[in-house]
């Protein structure tokens, strides 16, 4: 009765009403940003008095915005590659290793995901001060790698656990060396896990802001840092334009992930 929508009686109305309100609560801010980015009012009037592409032009004409966009992209790309490679190795060790303390090690690898980022940000800032890594590409990559690695390990470990190891053994009996069997059989077998590891690692770095705020220098700013520092000064509609670009990218990635999932099912 309670799990049958058509037989909820008066409760159905309540449920629909709350769902509608929460849906609006979740969706409206996103629609608002998109609307404002095309609105002509510098003071963010809504609904806008007119429509314009001016904020996008300001955004794309500003070399600083472009630079931070590229910086974020470069960092995220390098982090993605490293995170998948290191995560793949670690996942092999964690799921197939025969040493003591594997579960403890897994927990250690996942802690950066559950601890408050601000603690890591402050700690890394102090640490990198000594190593002169603040404001450097290497520093960003190392810091974001720590944040991205748990996502990579979770995705790949899950895929490896689901992958029937007997298939790899069969490849070896067929004459493939252990390494060849991994490359030709196991990796293709867990490719969905690898792709989602890559996707989540990229997003973890791309969206990371807290550590970046501490580490950024005027010369090397990621996109989130630039948005954050701009927001602290004023609510320029250019931010709405950046945000809309980001939302479009997110929606694109979501569609990609959905496709991956559909591919996995077939």
């Amino acid at each position, binding site marked *: *009765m*309670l*799990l*049958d*929508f058509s037989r*909820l009686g008066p409760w159905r109305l309540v*449920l*629909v009403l*709350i*769902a509608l309100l*929460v*849906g609006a609560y*979740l969706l409206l*801010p996103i629609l*608002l940003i998109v609307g*404002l980015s095309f609105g002509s009012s510098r003071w963010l009037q*809504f609904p806008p008095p007119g429509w314009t592409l001016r904020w996008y032009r300001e955004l794309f004409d500003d070399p600083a915005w472009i630079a931070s966009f590229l910086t974020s992209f470069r960092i995220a790309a390098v982090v993605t590659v490293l995170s998948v490679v*290191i*995560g793949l*190795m*670690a996942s*092999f*060790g*964690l799921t197939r*290793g025969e040493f003591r303390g*594997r579960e403890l*090690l897994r927990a*250690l690898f996942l802690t950066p995901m*559950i*601890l*408050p*980022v*601000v*603690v*890591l940000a*402050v*700690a890394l*800032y*102090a*640490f990198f001060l000594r190593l002169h890594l603040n404001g450097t590409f290497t520093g960003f990559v*190392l810091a974001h*790698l*720590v944040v991205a*690695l748990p996502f990579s*390990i979770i995705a790949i470990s899950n895929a490896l656990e689901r992958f029937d*190891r007997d298939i*790899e*053994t069969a490849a070896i009996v067929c004459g493939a060396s*252990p390494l060849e069997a991994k490359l030709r059989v196991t990796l293709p077998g867990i490719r969905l896990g690898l792709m989602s590891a890559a996707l989540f690692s990229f997003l973890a770095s791309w969206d990371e*802001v*807290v550590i970046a705020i501490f580490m950024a220098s005027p010369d090397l700013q990621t996109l989130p840092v630039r*948005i*954050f520092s701009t*927001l602290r000064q004023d*609510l320029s509609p250019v*931010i709405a334009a950046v945000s809309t670009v980001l*939302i479009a990218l*997110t929606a694109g*990635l*979501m569609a990609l992930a959905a496709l991956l999932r559909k591919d996995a099912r077939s």
Partner: protein
Amino acid sequence: MTLSHAAHVPSPARPRRLPAGLAAVTPAFALVAVVFVLPVLALLLRSVLEPEPGLQNYAAFFASTTYLKVLGNTFLVAATVTVATVLLGFPVAWFLAIAPGFWSRLLFAVVILSMWTNLLARTYAWMVLLQRTGLINRTLMNLGLISEPLPLINNLVGVTIGMTYIMLPFMILPLHATIRSIDPSVFQAASLCGASRWQAFTRVMLPLTATGIAAGALMVFVMSLGYFITPALLGGTSNMMLAELIAQLVQSLLDWGLAGAAALVLLVVTLAIYAVQLRFFGFGQARS
């Protein structure tokens, strides 16, 4: 004899010097040890070493009404956000689990989209909405409900609204899975036993979802405790939360000892809550 019972074949024997898999975890271990464990431990150590060895940083932290107020703010906001996400998230998860395909899929997509949208973009939207001349205040004034703009931003109200928005998906998604896993026939049984809808809800549905609610609530609570960005942008300088305090101690006051102490307080609370979660809900919940 079905496949699921079939034993796995052992993997081919190989002569080895190290235990299998130890070499493979080394890069990850080196990274986490050097770029995570070491810096965090160093920071925490500074709390008992700077400016001189001793516990004076902790004494200062717990003696200062300012800092205690920050701690209070942090717990207050985290608790309010948790309660709000449970109250809003439960019906939504329920709706998602049973509503006709199209509507539930649509709402589901909205939840996912909002979760994946860049955090700063979402916070920006709330800054625009909540400001003095923002959409909310203007609408309320146009409707004649208020004459003066409500102070919705640069205070804990703004922080709570913004964080509830950000945390909602983390409550909805696990609860949705919990409700989906309930066998509908238990309600048919309850109804045959003479239970009314309300009784079925309080005596069957709530107990069956209690662990899901508790797990989601703990997760939201602990994430809220250490949140930085949203409080920094929607909150005011007079009503800080703990994460902002830590950042400020480092950035403006350069007081590393006190920052380390505040960080340790945050870590201890966070880890304690995770320990509770592990104890009662196992590893699986904490990991997902």
